[in-house]
Structures are given as structure tokens and as C-alpha cells.
């Protein structure tokens, strides 16, 4: 029997959050954490969590499992559980809506701020804007982000200033458009990032790199943005 401790909070009935302890029969299999949550849900249908694709593609089930953020659907128990105990909490730093479901508004607001779409004011060509294979390669390690918020919600700088620090996820996407050869708004994009908070609250702690379930490296992207700002100023 697997010992599970799960964060519960229903704002309509609970005065404060609490940890609920349960036992789950995993049948001795190395299940994913999401499977365990589904087993719990079969016992107690009031447990709330988000999920959709169950294969690490949609980014809905970002959770804090035994102290580390990740996607429940691709986190095997063998890599998560310590001493037969699984502790599941919502992503840290974001307001809890209910149980494991968090309010991601601040996270999305930061994403919106970086204008995550291609901007090009030159006349559109007949078919499409072409890129050389080398130019396309620059977007590798950037475009794969699924906006699960595992990184930003593990970043202390984002905890303290979620309204002013863009956070690792947003900055990775900011760089994705700064690095795109088809985008012509580089100057405007950089000008909006050159305040003391948006980029420069990153202190290089690299929590974001440690948790990204897609193996992306926001810290490196932030370094690139910093260099672009530096070059722009000199």
C-alpha cells in the first residue's frame, strides 16, 4: 500500500487547507502519479485536479510532488516516491482555487505581456515567410514549451513579484520571438523588457531548469535576452 498525503482545500467548506492521508493500492506497479490521483478520485470524487492528455503534452497537471514540480502524468512513482510516501501539493506560489487546482491568471498575464505571436510589418509574401534551416534551428529548445507553469511556480523571484517579473516561462517565450528571424519587433520587445523587474529579477538560481518536464532551459534564454539588452545599449 502506498502512503499518500494530498493537499485539500475547498473554500466553500474548509476554513483552511489541510493534508489528507490515504492509502492507495498500486498493485505493485510503477504507476504514474496521475494514475494514483485517478485511483484516489475513484474512492473520493470530491478531490479536484486538472488533467487532459495524460502524456505530457497539454501541460494541465503541473503539480508539486514530494517537493518538486512536475507533470503528474509523466512522473513515475519510482522516481518520485521516497520511503513509500507520496506527497502531492498544488503548484507553489499561485492562489489555490480548490485542492490541487490553482489560479494561473498571473502566469498567463506575464505570458500575454511578452506578446507571444509573430510580429512582422513587411508586406506578406505570396505563400509564406521562409527561414533557412539554421534560422529555424535557433527556435529549438524554445518552441516546445507547453506552459505548464512548473518553472515559474518554482522560481522564488516569481513568488515574490508575480505581477512584475515575467518569470522563466514567459521569458523563454520572449526569447523564442526575439530569436525568430521572421519577427521584426525585436527593438520594441527589448525596450519593454529593460526595467528592473521583467528580466532582471532573475538571479540565476536555476530552479526552472531543474523542474522543466520538457527539458528546456529558461535560464539560458534569459542570459540571451540579457546579452541582447546589453548589445542594444552599447
Amino acid at each position: 500500500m502506498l502512503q499518500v498525503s494530498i493537499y485539500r482545500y475547498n473554500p466553500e467548506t474548509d476554513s483552511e487547507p489541510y493534508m489528507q492521508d490515504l492509502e492507495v493500492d498500486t498493485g505493485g506497479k510503477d504507476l504514474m502519479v496521475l494514475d494514483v490521483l485517478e485511483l484516489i478520485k475513484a474512492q473520493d470524487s470530491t478531490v479536484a485536479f486538472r488533467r487532459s492528455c495524460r502524456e505530457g503534452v497539454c501541460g494541465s497537471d503541473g503539480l508539486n510532488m514530494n517537493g518538486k514540480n512536475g507533470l503528474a502524468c509523466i512522473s513515475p512513482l519510482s522516481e518520485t516516491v521516497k520511503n513509500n510516501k507520496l506527497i502531492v501539493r498544488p503548484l507553489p506560489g499561485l492562489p489555490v482555487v480548490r485542492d490541487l487546482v490553482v489560479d494561473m491568471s498571473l502566469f498567463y498575464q506575464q505570458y500575454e505581456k511578452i506578446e507571444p505571436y509573430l510580429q512582422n510589418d513587411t508586406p506578406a509574401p505570396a505563400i509564406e515567410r521562409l527561414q533557412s534551416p539554421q534560422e529555424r534551428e535557433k527556435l529549438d529548445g524554445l518552441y516546445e514549451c507547453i506552459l505548464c507553469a512548473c518553472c515559474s511556480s518554482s522560481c522564488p523571484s516569481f513568488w515574490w513579484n508575480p505581477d512584475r517579473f515575467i518569470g522563466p516561462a514567459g521569458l523563454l517565450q520572449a526569447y523564442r520571438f526575439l530569436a525568430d528571424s521572421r519577427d521584426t519587433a525585436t527593438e520594441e520587445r527589448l525596450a519593454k523588457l529593460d526595467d528592473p523587474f521583467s528580466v532582471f529579477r532573475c538571479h540565476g538560481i536555476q530552479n526552472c531548469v531543474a523542474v522543466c518536464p520538457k527539458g528546456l532551459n529558461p535560464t539560458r534564454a534569459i542570459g540571451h535576452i540579457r546579452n541582447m539588452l546589453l548589445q542594444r545599449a552599447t
Partner: protein
Amino acid sequence: MVTAVTNFGRSGLYDWLMQRVTGVVLLCYFGFIGAVLVTHPDISYSEWRSTFEPTWVRIFSVAALLSLAVHAWIGLWSVLTDYVTPRMLGDKANLLRGLATLACAITLFTYLVWGIQIIWGS
């Protein structure tokens, strides 16, 4: 909202650069002081004093002192805007942070003037 009015420079980049540059100056200075202590293990007070006599050492010392003040200012401002904010402490936080920032400014300025006086005084 945390406002940026009290930050030292005009941009985040400028602050970040200053933090790096002043860091390097401080590193060099403490390297120098360390070297003096290592090469003179039994340094006497008069020897120690005379180390600071040459004009270049005085200039170096003032540069280090200035760097320290700037470095501390940017660092403390960052810490205060991380932790002493309405998000962390509620409504009174902005007033509190203003006072704390002022206290930091006065302290750093005092140490700066006092330090220069010590370095350039006979």
C-alpha cells in the same frame, strides 16, 4: 504595486551592470587587502597605516568604498522590493519599505562620507 522610482539607475540593465562592475572592484580591493595581510603576517600598526598613505591606495580605497555603497544599495533595494511588499506584508508595506529604503540610504551615505574622511584625513 511596487514602484521603480527608488531604483538606482534608469534601467534594469544599468543596475545589473553596476552590480557586476562594483563587484569586480570590490573583489580586486579585497584581493589587495588580502595580499597585504598574507605578505605581512605580523604587520604593525604603523606599517598598516603607511600601506594607505600612497595616493593610488587612497583612490583605490575610495573607489572600493563607493562600489560598496552602490553594490549594497542595489542589493538592498532588490531585497526590499522582494520581501517588503503589499503582497507579502499587506497595506502598510509600501510605507514600511519607503522608511527602510530611506534608512539604507542614510546609513550608506553616512558610511561613505565617514569612510572618505578616514581615508583622506591625515
